[in-house]
């Protein structure tokens, strides 16, 4: 085995490929997918800061707001509640929803509330998003597992890894690689590594940015308490899971790009397989990527009670396994997929020119 030569060739392939992969015009939508959550958390950071500013203003303009708010209890009439708020100089908005429901919305400096009045009497006092870090951590867990892993990284890897071979076939430029004195397996691994460099850079940067934006909205004390506790562990886990998602999905879509002609059929089939992971018997669960990734996520993703039962089943996390087994399992699946793809890459033919 000429390992020195292979190492040089791998390095050459990665050097040639990674920039091409990273800066491809064809891959702009991958950036959009990757950085959409960062945009959302940026907007959330702005919202949280606004709420915080409002709360600070309230603590000055209405120092007894909390006490007044506590006195608003079920059965109280809308007019009485409004008068109490007015007397305490707490700004509020009053509106109707439908024909019978009246709502008073206010912020007492610590929390935001929606008071729901039916037939003029208070029937429900709902605490709205309080802009707490703990809420954002749970929201992030949901976004990360239901959107970022299952859709953004998934389709990002479709776009990047499938194009490594299939895209070059469409561009009629793959033969340049096949005309080099490089073993096909070495070529495949080189392209896979360049895809990994690109995806880990894109999605890892986005994960880091999302976490930064999520934390940046909160007070220094909240953030330092979180980091002193499990915060750094969460950050490392999210970054690690992001990288492992690229490893797992990357291997699958590289193989799909070599074996299948239509990337959309491959992506849809794999998305379906990953989607039904919850229903699969224990043995089959191990042949998916999401199973291992979800086991490694540091926070259990919340499920909204409004989600219909069938959909809830699809997005529910399977029983997690330990981190070392999950990492080992994911690498085993990825290596098995690449080994399978190497059989095809050895037989790969260039036939895009007419004789």
């Amino acid at each position, binding site marked *: 085995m*000429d390992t020195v*030569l292979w190492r*040089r*060739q791998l390095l*050459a*392939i990665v*050097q*040639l490929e990674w920039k*091409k992969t990273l800066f*491809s015009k064809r891959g702009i939508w991958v950036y959009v997918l990757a950085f959409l959550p960062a945009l959302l958390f940026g907007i959330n950071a702005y919202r949280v800061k606004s709420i915080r500013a409002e709360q600070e203003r309230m603590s000055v303009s209405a120092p007894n707001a909390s006490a007044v708010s506590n006195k608003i209890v079920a059965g109280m009439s809308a007019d009485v509640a409004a008068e109490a708020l007015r007397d305490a100089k707490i700004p509020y908005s009053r509106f109707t929803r439908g024909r019978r429901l009246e709502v008073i919305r206010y912020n007492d400096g610590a929390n935001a509330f929606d008071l729901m009045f039916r037939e003029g009497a208070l029937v429900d006092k709902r605490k709205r998003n309080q802009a707490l870090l703990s809420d954002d951590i749970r929201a992030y867990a949901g976004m990360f597992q239901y959107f970022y892993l299952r859709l953004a990284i998934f389709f990002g890897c479709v776009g990047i890894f499938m194009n490594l071979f299939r895209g*070059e076939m469409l*561009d*009629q*430029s793959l*033969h*340049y*690689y*096949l*005309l*080099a*004195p*490089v*073993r*096909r397996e070495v070529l495949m691994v080189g392209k896979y590594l360049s895809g990994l460099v690109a995806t880990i850079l894109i999605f890892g940067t986005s994960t880091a940015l999302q976490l930064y934006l999520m934390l940046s909205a909160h007070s220094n004390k909240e953030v330092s308490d979180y980091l002193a506790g499990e915060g750094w562990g969460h950050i490392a886990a999210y970054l690690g899971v992001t990288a492992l998602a690229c490893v797992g999905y990357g291997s699958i879509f590289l193989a799909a790009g070599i074996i299948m002609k239509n990337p959309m059929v491959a992506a849809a089939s794999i998305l379906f397989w990953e989607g039904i992971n919850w229903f699969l018997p224990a043995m089959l669960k191990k042949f998916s990527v999401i199973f291992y990734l979800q086991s490694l996520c540091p926070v259990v993703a919340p499920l909204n009670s409004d989600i219909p039962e069938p959909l809830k089943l699809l997005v529910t996390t399977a029983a997690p396994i330990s981190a070392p087994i999950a990492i080992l399992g994911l690498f085993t699946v990825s290596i098995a997929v690449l080994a399978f793809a190497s059989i095809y890459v*050895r*037989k790969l*033919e*260039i*036939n*895009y*020119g*007419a*004789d």
Partner: protein
Amino acid sequence: MSDSATIVFEDVSRFYGEVLGVNRVNLTIPPGITSLVGPNGSGKTTLMNMMTGLVRPSRGTISVRGIAPDDPQALFRIMGYCTQFDSFPRGYTGIQFVTAALLMQGLPAAEAEAKAWKAIEKVNLVEAAKRKVAGYSKGMRQRIRLAQSIAHDPQVLVLDEPLNGLDPLVRSETIALFREQADRGAHVIVSSHVLHEVDMISDQVILLANGYVVAEGEIRGVRAEISDRPHQIVIRCDQPSRMASKLFEHDHVVEVRIHPDRQGLLVKTTDASHFHKLLNKLALDGIYIDTIAPADDDVNSLYEYLIGDEGGN
């Protein structure tokens, strides 16, 4: 000649589903310039692609100087292939394109770049080397592909329609480059539609039609094998009319045409060796013969005799 010095096709066939690419090809190609000639769809590119491992034979075996085409690591140390696919990896300049191929040979970056410049010099593209390939003219793209295929000094150079898009000056320089490669003992396998160029550059030809090899060998040797077509010979002499009447006395002379300037004639004979003996006799009889030249031992004639109108060339 040993296997390590020749390219050997043994009973090679390739089918694309139901469609025939090439069928039952048996060839032994020695070093030198070998031209593949045939109409579109005759199997030229299929042969080249199989030789280079881009396509696998459905049946049979191929050996390129003792190396199987499914061993790219060994094959492309000794082989360069200039394909006719006019596409390039996106964003590359000429020098990057050639250097990239050398880097994948495992060469250190500095050595790869030095070799790339040398190859680019050989194809006279130094001035444009730092420009993006996407902005090149067709001829320049052809030359940069050629530079990439010769950059590692291959012993086997496979060139699919390499003269397409080149202007006359560059064509002659490129042909000289092929000759230089052949003279150092390399195999230069060329496919071309331009028959007079094939004639000019080839040491041997392989004629293909409908996926079959219809003839192979040195051009004159191939012509000599074609017995069902009379040989055409041009003679310049002082008494063309007398010579014509003397020639018609022999059965193997089937046609004689006197040249309009009345200084020569075109003869068609079915027996070339008898004909040459006859000319000696006529010369002794007092007819002054200035020159004798075959008129149909070129690729054009071979193509016409063996492939006919199928090629449309």
